[in-house]
């Protein structure tokens, strides 16, 4: 992240009027993007606003890693703009491209469940702006607003279920080949 961007976003949190951010604060457009994320599809606008309060904005430069294989997972990322490549190094040391994710897509959702090590790395291929949700913040939300927290967790379970089924199908297909 560039120094100017980071300092303006950091300082503006506490002293918004001393270091004003230029133009639109982007809250409405963030809510719109969040509404499109499958994890939050069930949420009302007011609930999305509550969720956005526990999100951290991060800006990544091309070539940076969002996270790396083996590190303990702590947060899920939603891409607001930019492009991220999910890569894995196989046993022969070769880099495998698993997926390329862009605006509106999310990654690292398993970190919302526990701190088990990341199974792949996320490499930034285009300058990226992302919103991150920290696991413990979501767990605290479950305590203070169980209804909202419950909705997110339920949707998370559904998404993980779908991805598990897709993986099983892929595995079956591979075995048949």
């Amino acid at each position: 992240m560039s120094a100017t961007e980071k300092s303006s976003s950091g300082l503006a949190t506490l002293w918004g009027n001393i270091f004003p951010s230029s133009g639109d604060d982007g809250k409405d457009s963030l809510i719109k993007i969040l509404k499109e994320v499958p994890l939050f599809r069930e949420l009302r606008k007011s609930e999305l606003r509550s969720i956005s309060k526990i999100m951290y904005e991060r800006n990544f430069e091309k070539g940076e890693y969002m996270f790396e294989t083996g590190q303990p997972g702590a947060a899920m990322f939603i891409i607001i703009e930019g492009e991220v490549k999910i890569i894995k190094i196989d046993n022969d040391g070769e880099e495998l491209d698993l997926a390329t994710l862009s605006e509106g897509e999310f990654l690292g959702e398993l970190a919302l469940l526990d701190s088990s090590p990341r199974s792949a790395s996320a490499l930034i291929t285009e300058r990226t702006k992302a919103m991150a949700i920290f696991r413990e913040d979501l767990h605290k939300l479950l305590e203070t607003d169980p209804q909202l927290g419950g909705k997110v967790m339920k949707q998370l379970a559904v998404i993980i279920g779908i991805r598990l089924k897709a993986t099983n199908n892929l595995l079956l297909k591979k075995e048949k080949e």
Partner: protein
Amino acid sequence: MSFKKTVDLNSDRLRRSRIFYFLLFLFFFVIGGFLILALKSLVLPTLVGMLSAYLCIPLLNILRRKGIPKGASLLILFGGFVFILFFLGKQIVDILPDEKEKLELRVQIQYKVNEQYLAFTGRDDFDSEGNIIHSIFGEELQPVIENLNDFIALTREERELFNLYSDPIQYADPIDKRVIGYFEEVSKLPYPIESEETKVESEDDGPFGLAPNVELMAGDSKIAKLIDALSTWIVLPFVFIFLLVDDGNIKKFLIDLMPNRYFEMSLTILDNVDDAIGNYLRGTLMQCSLVGLSFFVGLMVIGFDFDAAALIGILAGVANAIPFLGPVLGLGIGLVYAMIVEDINSILPFLSFDPIIGVLFVVLVVQVLDNTIFQPMVLGKAVNLHPLVVVLGVTGGSIIFGFVGMLFAIPTIVVFKVIIATIYKQLKLYYIIY
């Protein structure tokens, strides 16, 4: 843009960011250090406000879970906080002895100490022959008693004040005749030995302001002192309420300053440290409250009056935050009161203790309760410190900041231990260090 150019640009940015953050850090360090030194009197109220807010966060979460909106929850908490601050504060001030009562207390303590000492050594006065204890330990005990007498004895000005308070013509509520009798007895003793000037000076700094303040009696305005105290302690409720109102903005501010590489690690560190310190502080508060309450109940049972039991309970509870020394302080205060108390009636008629034995018994029971139930239940083994660290910490704290230093030494060491241990563990987990 070619890859090499991007890398060059990035390293340039990295260099500039480093300079910027270093200067920012230096600026805050210098300004922060200067402000802490210049506004020393604001440090304690700010710390207490922060601590209170920190301890109240789980309460706020409980209220919000019950469906109470955040604004209303804050109002309830702030109301409770103001109630505790003013109501309990007033109660404690009412219980605390005033200038006249302090003089009475000291005369009573001095008289009783000598009476008990003489009885213990089997003598009628200081010149007579004593029992076997006196013949064996007399020479060792004598200087201790002399020092104690010297410490408690009234100075010349205080004796004049005492005489003033004893005069039924000038005061509607003069000092009790029994205490006047004690005063006449202790006045015959050759104390204090040291010069009057040093005596007044050394006693002005007594803990809790319990030591008599002759200046105050001499006409120094109480209102001026009250306004002075209010002007610094007024920050406490503001710190309290703003920290509770804060919707994670302070945390966001800190996290935003972190480079991407350390982002997830910083979140985990902040959360772990917050958990560990929160549990420790809430546990300690709970443990101290339970110890204080047990003291209060125990002393009420053996027949202390409500005010004395409450005051000793509060003092013993607060002192309990200081390892090793806390229980000794509780015992000391209890014993001093047991010595001077005249009529003691246990609320349980079948218990007729000598008050000193009663206090010893209560302290023993409270210690057993603390070690077997309170500590394991509320503190667990989350933050174990080596006894040597505890002893050095408490001693060091008292050398640097006096009583407040003693009180805050262990929590401060625990906070640093948790922060360093967590950072170390996470740096390794994220492959940042070996």
